[in-house]
């Protein structure tokens, strides 16, 4: 499941939104949209997003938000005993639905690109009237036009500086992974319940948890869950040999 060579080839491409990137990854593998296919493209998705993060690209926050849901799907597939909350189940279900709907619109946009401008239907050319008229109304005074100009200037689109600040404020995946790794190494043994208590924001819990999953996958952690609703115990595998649940 390590990022393949092809993962890097798409990195240079610009994706405007997270759904666009995700559908690209799924379609590239000729997969249907379901939790299995989404789990299988998660690594590649995250590689792309961390790359976007490095370049401080706009909209990265939205990509990271979707990464959290993707990692949730992936963890469930790695760790079937994992109990998801109703809210999490819903967000996974939503993602699949939204992606399927988005896929339809993408197909439509393909036909639009093909048809656009290929069989143009033209309105008649406009020729201004020849008879000289002059019909000013109440809007044709300096004060009225000044007011209209004020309105126009107020409605000019604002430059998009704010979005950059928004990206900075969001937790980055790597930050979360790193802080978790050191914390786990220090404590040797921690539990997911404990982590959950320490993190105020639910989103951070997800990202934190998935970071653990990532470490687990790389073989640096041993994860034990006694039974379905029990706590998940996490410890660093000093020997660093891959162990799977």
């Amino acid at each position: 499941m390590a990022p393949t060579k092809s993962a890097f080839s798409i990195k240079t491409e610009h994706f405007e939104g997270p759904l666009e990137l995700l559908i690209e990854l799924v379609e590239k593998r000729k997969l249907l949209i379901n939790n299995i296919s989404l789990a299988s493209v998660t690594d590649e998705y995250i590689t792309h997003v961390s790359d976007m993060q490095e370049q401080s690209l706009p909209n990265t926050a939205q990509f990271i938000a979707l990464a959290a849901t993707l990692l949730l799907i992936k963890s469930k597939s790695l760790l079937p005993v994992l109990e998801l909350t109703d809210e999490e189940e819903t967000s996974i279900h939503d993602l699949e639905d939204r992606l399927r709907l988005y896929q339809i619109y993408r197909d439509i946009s393909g036909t639009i690109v093909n048809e656009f401008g290929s069989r143009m239907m033209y309105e008649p050319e406009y020729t201004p009237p020849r008879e000289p008229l002059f019909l000013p109304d109440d809007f044709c005074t300096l004060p009225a036009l000044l007011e209209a100009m004020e309105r126009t200037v107020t409605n000019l689109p604002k430059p998009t500086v704010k979005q950059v600040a928004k990206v900075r404020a969001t937790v980055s995946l790597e930050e979360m992974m790193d802080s978790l790794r050191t914390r786990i190494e220090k404590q040797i043994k921690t539990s997911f319940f404990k982590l959950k208590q320490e993190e105020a924001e639910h989103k951070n819990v997800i990202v934190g948890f998935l970071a653990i999953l990532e470490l687990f996958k790389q073989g640096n952690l041993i994860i034990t869950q006694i039974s379905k609703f029990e706590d998940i115990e996490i410890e660093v595998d000093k020997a660093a040999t891959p162990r799977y649940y």
Partner: protein
Amino acid sequence: MPLDVLVEAVLFYKATPQKVTSLQKLFGVEDGDEWRAALDRLQSRLQSGATRLIITDTELSLTTAPELGEFIETLRKSELKGDIGKAGAETLAIILYREPITRAEIDRIRGVNSSFIIRNLLVKGLISREATGNTFQFRITPELLAHLGVSKKAELPRFSEFMNAIDSFSTTPTETV
């Protein structure tokens, strides 16, 4: 004078898209069978000639037939075409199949902010906006259909297939990413 001839006269004289509601008001006609029959008559009568009637939910327009597109192109001094791009086509696809639609809904479907794209489509006259309460709703324009070479959006390739596919999602939950 039959209604279809009168409608044709206004569209020909004005030489620009006309609001359905103001035409109906002008002729004192309701939006019913009589109106639809007149549009049908006009559409089929024009079929053998050089012009076509474009019908959207809100506007009518008279243009040259799509088969004449290349020929008219040779008469034009300036190039009009140009590419709409991936994001533009995607946004148009959503508005075509879901009009009238707010920006928030478009953003939700695309999973990304669409305000720049929407502004550009408005500037190009491919979509129009109408104020409803304190938000805007977006619709397609006759110009968009003219660019796609169809008189009605139902004539677009695979229209009903796509429409059915989208309808099956009409109960999609509203959670955002």
